[in-house]
């Protein structure tokens, strides 16, 4: 914002975080160093080679990732057990703070989503906020980027229904962008350019977000008492999962996340991170410092920054604005993909975005902690291919050793100091350490739960939670090799320059079909079987050690199908497996959401909508047409939109001709872009409404005659 004076805050004292960072990462490095030494010793005693060097390097890197994860669990556990005073919610008394006169916008950026689900989530949040008595301090915005003409009209129609039902005219707004420049971050930027200055804060919600009213008010109060805080990220609880996969993810999130995030907060403190939604942001500094530049080069690394959230947090921190995790604030919810394949689709988008951070990593002026967040994000995806490489290198060494007939040459190693361990026992010891490092956070989460009686009850009791952890561990063991293969593919395709398309997430628990699972997993199955056969030939004992990895691949098709089933999720719930606090004690907001969705399910016409149903409504229905046209007219008040409309060609004779073609030939003869263009032209839309009702039927395309007949019959 060139015309606004720069606002700045002084840098916060560094000392305490410096020590925390040093201690935290030193623990991880020390652990990695010790175990790597043991591993190097194991390799040494069987004879060193170049491939063993590769194996050692891979081991060190992978173990470091695991050790950092483990340390998050360990530190988080101790902080939760003995108290963590350095929490944003604990630094100052914020509860008595008044928020009178403070305006906050709650924005829902959406893109071709299921509008029923989005609006019901918004309604639940709105009603919850109304119960706090602070509704008047908030405005809601549905920021649509939808490119499907039918979705566009449906969003408008349902928005009107919503504001009428809630009597929220002038409280809940709807805006559809004319182009999708900048995707989600561009959508938010467009909102800020139009209305940002009206609001001191804005809160970004995802399409599946639900927020408790008290939480929203608390966030505003926290921002008010901490004037140097630029962003507070809540930790959304995964909710509403029905499939087995979704419920396992949900259970893991609810049980492990508090411990992990407490650990994360230990070293991040006021240099936290942003996850793109369920966070409150101070508008002014965000507008000044967080507009994202284009990265140099071409896609997939260059161009627009896809995972904008991490970078926005880094830019905020760069200017000394604090970014915190409010990890102990309850009442922030989101949903999770219901099946492995949908989860992988989301992973693919995130992978591209996170790898792109490799370019931002070296940007001048970024805080070291921000770089750490970026590195951890990148490593999350690089771990997959590195693990695969580790397994392949190990296999190669074993195969080479066996078929060259070369025998191990035992040499002096640590063995005397380790009670003369045999080679097998030595390898087993390292394996056990690795398992402990991976499993320890889960175990600590259980102890954390055991120490907290009220929370324990919300997981169905300790015994059920323990069974859940065992079940989750078995599933994640089988799922991990698939993630490894997926991540490897995503990383490789990214490096080959193949970009991802921006698709809507599938969030419903419809279930994966066997055919779809076969199409997506046949490669995994084949790799699992071939690799298994290879291992069996190589050494049957080794094969059994590899079973968890191979089983995940070989069984990927049934695993994917069965875990996507809602029925299995329900059955597990009946058996008391993977219970979460929100399942045991349904919060008011989620109860409202579910009841309203059920009402929609029972009352809405759920038959598949005919093609161009939205267009038919926008043209024929006098009210939908009026809503659509009046929303278009309002765009004329914003010079930026006027410019965009002109750029699209709205108002030109071409659009009028397209409108004529639409009536004469039907919508099938027009491309989606042409239909969108017509629908963006208010003059043509009014004309189409009038013409469709006034013209003699014989001058209309047969498609329209049928549509009018069908529309009239329905009404």
């Amino acid at each position: 914002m060139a015309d606004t004076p720069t606002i700045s805050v002084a840098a916060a004292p560094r000392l305490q975080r410096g020590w925390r960072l040093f201690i935290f990462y030193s623990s991880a490095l020390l652990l990695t160093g010790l175990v790597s030494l043991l591993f190097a010793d194991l390799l040494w005693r069987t004879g060193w080679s170049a491939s063993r060097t590769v194996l050692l390097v891979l081991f060190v890197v992978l173990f470091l990732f695991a050790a950092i994860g483990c340390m998050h669990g360990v530190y988080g556990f101790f902080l939760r057990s003995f108290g963590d005073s350095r929490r944003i919610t604990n630094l100052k008394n914020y509860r008595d703070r008044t928020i009178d006169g403070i305006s906050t916008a709650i924005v829902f950026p959406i893109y071709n989503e299921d509008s029923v689900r989005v609006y019901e989530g918004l309604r639940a949040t709105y009603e919850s906020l109304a119960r706090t008595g602070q509704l008047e301090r908030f405005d809601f915005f549905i920021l649509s980027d939808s490119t499907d003409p039918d979705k566009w009209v449906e969003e408008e129609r349902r928005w009107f229904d919503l504001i009428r039902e809630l009597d929220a005219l002038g409280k809940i707004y709807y805006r559809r962008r004319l182009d999708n420049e900048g995707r989600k971050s561009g959508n938010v930027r467009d909102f800020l350019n139009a209305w940002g200055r009206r609001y001191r804060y804005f809160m970004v919600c995802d399409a599946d977000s639900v927020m408790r009213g008290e939480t929203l008010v608390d966030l505003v109060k926290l921002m008010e008492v901490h004037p140097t805080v630029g962003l507070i990220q809540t930790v959304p609880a995964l909710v509403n999962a029905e499939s087995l996969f979704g419920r396992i993810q949900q259970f893991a999130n609810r049980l492990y996340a508090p411990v992990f995030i407490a650990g994360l907060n230990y070293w991040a403190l006021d240099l936290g991170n942003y996850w793109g939604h369920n966070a409150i942001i101070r508008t002014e500094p965000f507008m000044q410092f967080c507009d994202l530049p284009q990265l140099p080069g071409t896609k997939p690394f260059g161009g627009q920054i896809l995972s904008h959230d991490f970078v926005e947090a880094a830019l905020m921190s760069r200017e000394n604005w604090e970014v915190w995790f409010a990890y102990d604030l309850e009442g922030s919810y989101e949903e999770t993909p219901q099946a492995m394949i949908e989860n992988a689709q989301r992973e693919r988008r995130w992978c591209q975005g996170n790898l792109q951070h490799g370019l931002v990593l070296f940007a001048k002026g970024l805080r070291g902690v921000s770089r750490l967040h970026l590195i951890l994000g990148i490593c999350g995806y690089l771990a997959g291919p590195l693990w695969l490489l580790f397994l392949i290198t190990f296999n190669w060494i074993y195969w080479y050793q066996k078929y060259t007939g070369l025998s191990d040459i035992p040499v002096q190693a640590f063995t005397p100091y380790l009670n003369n361990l045999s080679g097998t026992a030595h390898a087993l010891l390292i394996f056990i350490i690795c398992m402990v490092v991976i499993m320890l956070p889960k175990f600590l989460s259980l102890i954390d739960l055991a120490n907290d009686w009220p929370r324990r009850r919300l997981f169905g009791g300790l015994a059920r939670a323990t069974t859940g952890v065992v079940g989750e561990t078995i599933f994640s063991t089988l799922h991990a090799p698939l993630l490894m293969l997926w991540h490897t593919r995503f990383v490789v395709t990214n490096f080959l320059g193949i970009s991802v398309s921006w698709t809507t997430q599938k969030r419903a628990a419809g279930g994966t079909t066997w055919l779809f699972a076969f199409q997506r997993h046949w490669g995994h199955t084949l790799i699992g079987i071939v690799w298994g056969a290879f291992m069996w030939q190589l050494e049957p004992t080794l094969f059994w050690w590899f079973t968890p990895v191979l089983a995940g691949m070989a069984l990927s098709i049934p695993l994917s199908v069965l875990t996507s089933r809602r029925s299995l999720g329900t059955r597990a719930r009946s058996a008391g497996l993977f219970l979460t606090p929100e399942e045991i004690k349904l919060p008011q907001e989620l109860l409202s959401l579910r009841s309203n969705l059920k009402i929609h399910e029972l009352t809405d016409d759920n038959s598949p909508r005919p093609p161009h149903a939205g267009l038919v409504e926008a043209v024929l229905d006098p009210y939908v047409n009026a809503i659509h046209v009046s929303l278009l007219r309002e765009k004329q008040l914003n010079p930026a939109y006027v410019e965009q409309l002109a750029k699209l060609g709205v108002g030109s004779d071409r659009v009028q001709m397209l409108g004529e073609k639409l009536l004469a030939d039907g919508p099938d003869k027009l491309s989606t872009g042409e239909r969108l263009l017509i629908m963006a032209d208010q003059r043509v839309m009014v004309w189409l409404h009038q013409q469709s009702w006034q013209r003699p039927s014989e001058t209309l395309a047969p498609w329209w005659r049928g549509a009018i007949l069908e529309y009239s019959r329905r009404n």
Partner: protein
Amino acid sequence: MESAVNTVILPDASGHLAGRPLEEWNAAYAKVENYFHALRIRNKVLLGDLVLRVLERAQRRAPAELNRSATQLAAEEMDRIVTEWFSEVLQSPPTKADQTLSTRGRLALLLADMPGRWQEQFLRPGPWPEEFTSAMRETFLRAGPDFQLSKMTPRPLDLGPITTLQNLGKMPYFRMTLVWAGFALLFIVFFWLTHGGFEQVRTWLSLLVDWFRQINQ
């Protein structure tokens, strides 16, 4: 504005009405009825009354406009009646230039909840109840509050060594240097192959062959 059907036009001996066959008027009736239905006029008596009012005006025009179908005439009259009524209720003169009034009127009907609360007022001449007129005149649909325009502009982000790497490709002779590096690599591979590399590859291949033989046995 006329208030009700005051002239009943009956079919002539040939079964024509205002110079057109009854089927044509039937189609016109259906068209007008469908539109009012789309406006959510659910009361059948009111609906029938409104349709007849429109048809009556169309029938009056019909003898003079023989080249136009009854449906066309009825649709035009329907539009005219509705727009005139909007003009009176909203106290806004109709303009021929655009259809703002029609859109605004339909929106006002929706916002005032005409289908739910005020069906009997639709197309009725004034005066109308105060609550109805204020609901029609004072409600506006807003996509957002008043704009407070600004322009976010990205601050330059110095990517440090990444920029240097990105710029490498633009350096003069970069591609040529790359080709030379490729030559060097070829020489290195050649050296390796001629200094034990061949044997190494041969060993690997024979190991593989042996292994496959072993499996097949």
